[in-house]
């Protein structure tokens, strides 16, 4: 049992001694560079070969061949251990142990006679001076020896450790599709709102789609329910084929009644389709571009303007529903100072004709604000407004116009009449 006492004391003190540890890693020299090749999971990609009136989608399964360059470095792990209290504990322990030892050595020099000036409660004399010195020396050594032990353990556990090891690091990585092979399975063409062609099953890695089967624009090709990867060339071919299919399904004999936004959409389809059917689309492309250019200069065709055929103020008000009140005293009149902000808005107008600029253009005055008023040539209500006459009607704000030296907001009349 006694043989276990000292090891246990050492273990207990080792646990009590605080040792601060700091570890840092230092990168050493490059030892070698090794290329490494591996094959990881790939996927399925598609290629679109568009013709007219059919397109072919080929499906290709592939794996990913990964080429890595692995660099091997030497690395040193430095661990510094410090016990900041061990020095103080050691010096204090040595001092107290020495003092205790000296007192113990000198104890025979003190008197062994008991202190007869004291008799305690148990009926005993007080301790002899030698007894007192011995007790003090033992007490000092009881404190000092463990302090020495703690200090020594701290010193033993302090120090630097260096561990060398090699570390692999991927310096570069390049993934390349490889081991391509045709794959079969269900193929679906999807538009914005759902499937736009019947589901087909690829055989021998190919599937053919006819233009007459397409019911709308194609935004994705799905294989087994998952979107297929397409390269840029295939994307363009798919877009061209789908555009041609849309145009083929809805031919336009006349552009007169087609609003401009729809004409722009059609022009985009025509341009996309030209990649596939250049000759067939050339004529339509020119016609649409010419019509749009004409509208830019002359505005929308009369037939497309709401209220254009109004024959009374009430009809015009119903067709346009004015959102501004351009009458003397209304705060809306102030908005004409910056007409761009209210361009395209309908307004109810009460004004006085101030000046006739041309047959269908006049300067009118609303309170203190002046504006050009454009009348529609040929409209049954567009005459009979002499200078000085009060007028009322429905107008559309059409920006700012400069005529001669005058720059004024433009009001395009939807319907106008003399104010009773």
């Amino acid at each position, binding site marked *: 049992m006694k043989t276990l006492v000292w090891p246990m004391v050492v273990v207990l003190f080792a646990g009590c001694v605080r040792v601060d540890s700091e570890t840092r890693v230092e990168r050493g020299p490059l030892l070698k560079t090794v290329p490494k090749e591996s094959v990881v999971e790939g996927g399925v990609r598609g290629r679109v070969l568009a013709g007219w009136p059919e397109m072919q989608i080929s499906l290709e399964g592939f794996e990913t061949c990964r080429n890595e360059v692995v660099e091997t470095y030497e690395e040193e792990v430095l661990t510094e251990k410090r016990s900041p209290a061990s020095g103080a504990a050691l010096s204090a322990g040595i001092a107290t142990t020495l003092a205790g030892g000296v007192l113990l050595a000198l104890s025979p020099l003190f008197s062994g006679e008991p202190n007869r000036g*004291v*008799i*305690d*409660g148990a009926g*005993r*004399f*007080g*301790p*002899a001076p030698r007894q007192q010195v011995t007790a003090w020396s*033992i007490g000092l050594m009881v404190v000092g020896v463990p302090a020495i032990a703690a200090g020594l353990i701290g010193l033993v556990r302090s120090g630097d450790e260096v561990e060398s090891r090699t570390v692999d690091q991927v310096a570069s990585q390049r993934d390349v599709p490889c081991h391509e092979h045709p794959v079969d399975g269900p193929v679906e063409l999807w538009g914005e709102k759902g499937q736009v062609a019947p589901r087909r099953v690829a055989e021998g890695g190919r599937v053919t789609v006819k233009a007459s089967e397409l019911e709308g624009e194609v935004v994705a090709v799905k294989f087994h329910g998952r979107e297929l990867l397409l390269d840029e060339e295939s994307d363009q071919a798919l877009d061209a084929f789908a555009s041609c299919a849309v145009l083929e399904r809805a031919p336009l004999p006349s552009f007169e009644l087609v609003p401009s936004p729809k004409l722009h959409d059609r022009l985009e389809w025509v341009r996309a389709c030209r990649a596939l059917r250049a000759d067939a689309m050339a004529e339509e492309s020119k016609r649409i571009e010419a019509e749009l250019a004409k509208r830019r200069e002359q505005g929308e065709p009369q037939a497309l303007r709401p209220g254009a055929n109004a024959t009374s103020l009430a009809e015009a008000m119903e067709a346009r529903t004015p959102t501004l009140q351009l009458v003397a005293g209304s705060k809306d009149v102030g908005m004409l100072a910056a007409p761009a902000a209210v361009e395209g808005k309908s307004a109810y107008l009460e004004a006085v004709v101030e000046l006739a600029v041309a047959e269908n253009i006049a300067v009118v005055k609303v309170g203190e604000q002046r504006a050009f008023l454009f009348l529609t040539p040929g409209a049954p209500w567009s005459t009979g407004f002499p200078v000085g006459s009060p007028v009322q009607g429905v107008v559309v704000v059409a920006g700012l116009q400069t005529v001669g030296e005058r720059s004024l907001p433009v009001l395009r009349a939807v319907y106008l009449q003399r104010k009773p």
Partner: protein
Amino acid sequence: MQCTGPEVSDVELCRDVVHRLCQPALCPQVTSVLTVSQEFCETTLLTRGGCTTESFAFSAPARNRVLSCRLPLLRKGDGVEAHPACEDVAEVFDRCDDVVVFFGGTPP
């Protein structure tokens, strides 16, 4: 390891009790209960208790009983010349009739 001296003999213990009780100035309880004067207090009590001879040994009361009754007298210090407080002397007389009788007094 004990940090005390050797055990005192019965006669030394008896003399210590008498010495503490007779420290001048005498407490009134000592005068009234033990009926002794300041001048002859120590001689009278040593004689009444029989502690004048070196071979004296406690029988009734026993040594341990005397040690127990003596404890209040040490409250002011265990030095042999310490004067006990008079209320501690009164406590001894109240608690230990046999010690009062041993010293020839009349229990209160």
